[in-house]
């Protein structure tokens, strides 16, 4: 049973109180691209790929659908020239890090993003935070976390914890849109616990 209705790309969609636009769209089978979203995790609002246009009380604005609460009567557009342009820029920025990541390559095709638009960066990590948040919110292991801020921000394993829990879990590995996470763990493991030759 839905509490109220809103309109997404011309379709009338029923939603429950407290749901986000993204959840409403997903239930109605309307696709909105995401990179940092995971249904088991709190909305993060980091990648900004799920940006959509909403019209409410005569005003149009851009919002990210993974956080924005669905309201009765809201008119949502998931594609427009402007939305596509912003998604393309976001993809081009992320492909400076991970030009061959399969999900990014697929989205780049859709939005006409050029993987060489910006100068390449050394780290693959796109800071979606899926590993960190999954480890914290779902597994409650706190084995991997963020360090530093801004352009120096990275993910980092706590060796003492990783040594105890990670080998039996590794549930975060398939979440990573790039291969960076696994590489970081392997590195942590080899540095902290070198195998005796």
């Amino acid at each position, binding site marked *: 049973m839905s509490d109220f209705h809103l309109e997404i790309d011309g379709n009338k969609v029923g939603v429950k109180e407290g749901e986000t636009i993204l959840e409403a769209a997903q239930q109605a089978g309307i696709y909105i691209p995401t990179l940092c979203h995971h249904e088991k995790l709190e909305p993060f609002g980091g990648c900004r790929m799920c940006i959509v246009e909403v019209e409410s009380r005569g005003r149009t604005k851009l919002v990210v659908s993974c956080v924005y609460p669905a309201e009765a009567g809201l008119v949502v557009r998931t594609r427009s020239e402007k939305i596509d342009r912003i998604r393309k820029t976001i993809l081009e*920025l992320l492909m400076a890090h991970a030009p061959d990541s399969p999900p990014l390559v697929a989205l780049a095709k859709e939005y006409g993003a050029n993987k060489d638009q910006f100068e390449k960066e050394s780290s693959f990590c796109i*800071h979606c935070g899926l590993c960190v948040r999954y480890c914290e919110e779902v597994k409650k292991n706190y084995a991997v976390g963020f360090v530093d801020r801004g352009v*120096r*921000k990275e993910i980092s394993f706590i060796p003492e914890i990783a040594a105890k829990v990670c080998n039996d879990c590794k549930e975060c590995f398939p979440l990573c849109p790039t291969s960076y996470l696994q590489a970081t763990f392997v590195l942590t493991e080899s540095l902290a616990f070198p195998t005796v030759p």
Partner: protein
Amino acid sequence: MSQINSPAELDAFRKGILAKRDPETPCISICAGAGCIASGADEVIAAFEAEIGAQGLAANVVTKGTGCPGFCERGPIVVIYPEEICYLGVTAEDVPEIITETIKEKRVVDRLLFEDPATGEKAVHESDIPFYRNQERNVICNNIKIDSKSIDDYLALDGYSALAKALTGMTDEEVLEEVKKSNLRGRGGAGFPAGIKWEGSRNAAEKTKYVIVNADEGDPGAFMDRALLEGNPHSILEGLIIGGYAIGAHEGYIYVRQEYPLAVENITLAIEQAGAYGLIGKNILGSGFDFKVIVHQGAGAFVCGESTALMTALEGRVGEPRPKYVRSNIKGLWNRPSVLNNVETWANVPLIINKGADWFTQIGTEGSKGTKIFSLVGKINNTGLVEVPMGISLKDIIFKIGGGIPNGKAFKAVQTGGPSGGCIPADQLDLEVGFDELTRAGSMMGSGGMIVMDEDTCMVDVARYFINFLTDESCGKCVPCREGLRQMHKILTDITEGNGKEGDIERLEQLAEAAREASLCALGKSAPNPFFSTLRYFRDEYEAHIREKRCPALSCKELIAYYIDPDKCRACMICARKCPVNAIEGGKKTIHVVDQEKCTRCGTCFEVCPARFNAVTKISGQPVPAPIPVKERTISRKSK
């Protein structure tokens, strides 16, 4: 100390303080703000105390370390009451003379007075100095009259009378209505009307609410909040308690940035003093209203000036902004209604309550009421804090109060609003200063930083500087800000270093649009402003850098060369001796030549070449003329 339990007791207490003070007793006020302390105010204060003791005047003269009056450039500042004689740039060595001459003999020490550089006229009183004369100082005026560590000084100047009036003479609703009527807009950033923000919190269902002072003054080049918090901490407290009463909050927080230790010290002391008098705590002035205040120190992160990041930091977590689309006055600190205003906004509240919203709305323009404190810095003669009515023109601030641009240079632009603001060019100097006016011009009010730039400032470099600042301060959570600014900084650096290419401006515009439209918080959304505004008004400079590899301001190191004009060089050897890398060839009676291979473009030769020769020039965008052949370098000096 005994508690003050009612407005009547407060009044009696105030009269008691005043009765003990003879207005004719000489009082020496020495600015003890961070700026003057950096200029040696501590030693001056110690010297006064020692000299007064030595001359046996301890019973007849009062000295006090006060807050910052704003004219930091000329500190340490000493004002002697009751005559209000103002001495500038005072050192410990001047102290005996001041005591002997001014205190004992009532004569003015001429050489310590302000001298108008234009007319040579001296100003005896603070109010005669043009820098002060053209201001309207309602908020910052008490800074110089109050010992910033004394609650009695604040009480003597009617301190806490607005609190008494609000708590016992007005209902909480009436207080809110008065603030709403005043149309006081937030002095920290976007200029949101304070009363409407307060009303939202007040009407929120959740019972526990908070009021918060944002003293995370992070904009480089702005220091008015530091001056207020250090100089007159009780005025902020008084405003905060009144705000708490209006919205029904019983707890207040003051978030002070880590770089301001003196502000933390003074506000912490002020809270203790107010607590001892019963002006904070249970049943304030017998009104039944309880209120407590907690000081929280920042740990060095510009993004914590953003409201939701500040609140997460207050909760003891990493200061990342929240992605939620819920206003913090409804769900803020610990998800409860929280009113966050900056220091200057809170400092206006007691004035509005005491003098009324009608008084407040007389000052300013239609959309921007009251006065605003600006921090006038950069290439300007009178650097310091200026408080002016909203609606004053930029020209009046920069030329009437600021005294214009030093060294006869031409004004180029003024950057307002901090890193998120923009640059306003010379042809818009008539712009009236107000929240909406500045936004329309492509800049913003922000917290009131005003950085003046002259003809030597490269506007592409200015954009690069601010984007670099924000790249460093981005929290790193969202892509358009973290990655977008990173790439913008790379492109802007390339342009200023002569590696710009066709298409760079378009790529910058692409990145700037994504940051403005899609960033998570105000930092990212406003980060492209310095780029947008410099491109809007100075596009030709961008194009010159990219296409001609030329810096029109002759500022970008990689794009300029220093060249000695052989016709003007008199072979005086000054530049050759001062050059730190020995890049200047030549000797006595031999025309000097810059070795372009060795030159590091530090500019020392340009600065030291005597003005009467003026032989060193800066060249950009064209090849350096070939050095004249060695055999033509000898000059025979003509006798006069």
